């Protein structure tokens, strides 16, 4: 059995909005292993993104425990969590979220600025990452000068430039056309297979989910047992077909 990289125990998250309590996650128990490529699927509001944010320590759980890469995140303060995130997590957003005033190269270099690397080393790493995603000829373009697919590939380069253990992608193909989406999924699969990165991807798209080795479903804030699919989800898929 390979090493467990994510383990959640009775993980719950409740948001309070205008005095209403919203249960975004309830008693989620999940184990993911090194080198896995897992897709998290489920209807809107099922808690997929919330789970991803908790795994990345971008948010704190209301109750339960989460151990990512052997680290109980509850024991870290904000400063240490930021450093931990920089070293171990690469995050890819649906809306790319590049800094518009920086070039592709500068965007990719940004997480490395938090390391002790010298400028020349940082730039060398950033160039390598951009070449890896096939954008060696777009290094000095700003996000406005890139297509959506290219922007997302820059975002993936930024996510992998620190050589993180875990790549978390929140609807990475949600804003892309079919061709660009396929390129991005191929890239994520390559990172998983060639570089052994553990990838957790939240998606609505069943085609995208098929790029993953395993699909886990969330429904009404709960993680369904492995192999189970939400009832509404099956019906919708059948109607689509």
């Amino acid at each position, binding site marked *: 059995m390979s090493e467990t990289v994510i383990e959640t125990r009775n993980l719950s998250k409740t948001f309070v909005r205008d005095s209403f309590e919203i249960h975004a996650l309830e008693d989620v128990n999940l184990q993911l292993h090194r080198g896995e490529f897992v897709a998290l699927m489920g209807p809107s509001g099922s808690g997929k993104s919330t789970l991803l*944010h908790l795994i*990345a320590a*971008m*948010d704190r759980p209301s109750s339960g425990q989460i151990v990512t890469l052997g680290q109980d995140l509850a024991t870290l303060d*904000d*400063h240490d969590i*930021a*450093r931990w*995130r*920089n*070293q171990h997590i690469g*995050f890819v*957003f649906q809306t790319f*979220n590049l*800094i*518009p*005033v*920086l070039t592709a190269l*500068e965007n990719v270099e*940004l*997480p490395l*600025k*938090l390391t002790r690397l010298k*400028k020349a080393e940082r730039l060398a790493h950033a160039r390598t990452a951009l070449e890896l995603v096939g954008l060696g000829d777009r290094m000095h373009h700003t996000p406005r000068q890139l297509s959506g697919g290219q922007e997302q590939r820059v975002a993936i380069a*930024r996510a992998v430039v620190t050589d993180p253990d875990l790549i978390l992608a929140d609807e990475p193909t949600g804003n892309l056309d079919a061709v660009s989406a396929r390129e991005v999924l191929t890239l994520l699969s390559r990172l998983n297979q060639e570089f052994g990165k553990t990838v957790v991807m939240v998606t609505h798209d069943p085609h995208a989910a098929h790029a993953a080795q395993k699909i886990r479903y969330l429904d009404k804030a709960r993680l369904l047992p492995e192999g189970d699919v939400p009832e509404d989800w099956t019906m919708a898929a059948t109607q689509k077909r």
Partner: protein
Amino acid sequence: MFKYLSLILKNSVRSKRRSALTVLSIAASLCLLGVLGAFYHVFFLDPPTEEQALRLWVRNRISLANPLPLAYQQRIAGAPGVRDVMVFQWFGGTYKDREAKNFFARFAVEPERLFSIYPEYRVAEDQKLAFQRERTACMVGRKLADRLGFKLGDRIVLEGDIFPVRLELTVRAVYDSPRDNENLLFHFEYLKESMPGYRGEMVSNFVIAARSAEEVPHIAEAVDAMFRNSAQQTKTETEKAFELSFLAFIGNVKVFLLSVCSAITFTILLVSGNTMAMSVRERVREVGILKTLGFTRGAILGVILAEAVVIALLGGIIGMFIAAGILDLMSRAPSIATDMSRLTLPPLIWGLCLAVSIFVGAVSAFVPAWNASRRSIVEALRFTD
């Protein structure tokens, strides 16, 4: 923070129009602050020159309009520490007409004492002798000579007002001086003999040259004590204090200047604060992104504050260069209330104004930057303006 420089600089000019307007508004305010600061420096902080530090002025305790007996000169000369005493009489009068361009200060002095009490007045030896020898001679400052085209040998007629006489003077010398080089100086003896009787025996001021700067305070006390029981009591003060007393005629200039400077600083704080708040608000999402990449609260706070400081400092530097230009023009203009030639932007005011810029930048951005840095990642990523 240096490694974030490209991010800071690029963010500073993200909205070019807004940044330019903010820089210009700060530049305009800092320019005004610099000019007022330069005035404050000249009036209250500029140390007296070596020669100035040795001079004291004596006037009637009641006011400048009340004269002192000429006979006081001999008694003052006997006070301990006094090296020399000279009459310095404001003449007033009119040259040609009452147009402002023809206005300049005219004083009756004692030429044989003048150059020992005012060693900073530099004049060619032959001109000096010519001025001292001839009773109707006068000496003009270089700046005045340039302004009104006076040349050696020119005849200048002054129609008196306070003194009901007509003086016909000949320019015999032109002096250079680091300050006060816009005066016309002529023989007190000429004025005295033109004003026979009581008026010729009264003068507005005496200028004392002390033997050393240490003796200056004692001389002031001794001279005033000497005439305490006289009909015309004296007020003796340093030249610097005497100059400042003219400012007091228009009110408490020190408080006025400081109040205006404070108001300017407060106003730019508000303008800058509003701009910085808008700028940070537009980028709350990016704060979430930076945090996702591993930026700490402190790093985010630092980056946003640095952006604000860059903008404010740029405005400050531009403003100070404009202020230096304005002060240079003012220093060339004719002096009216004070000697404008001393108006420059000293390093102290440069430093203070740039410090104000940095303060404005940092303070105006602190609250929005602090709030943004404390926002949770999820909240920041969901933020829509």
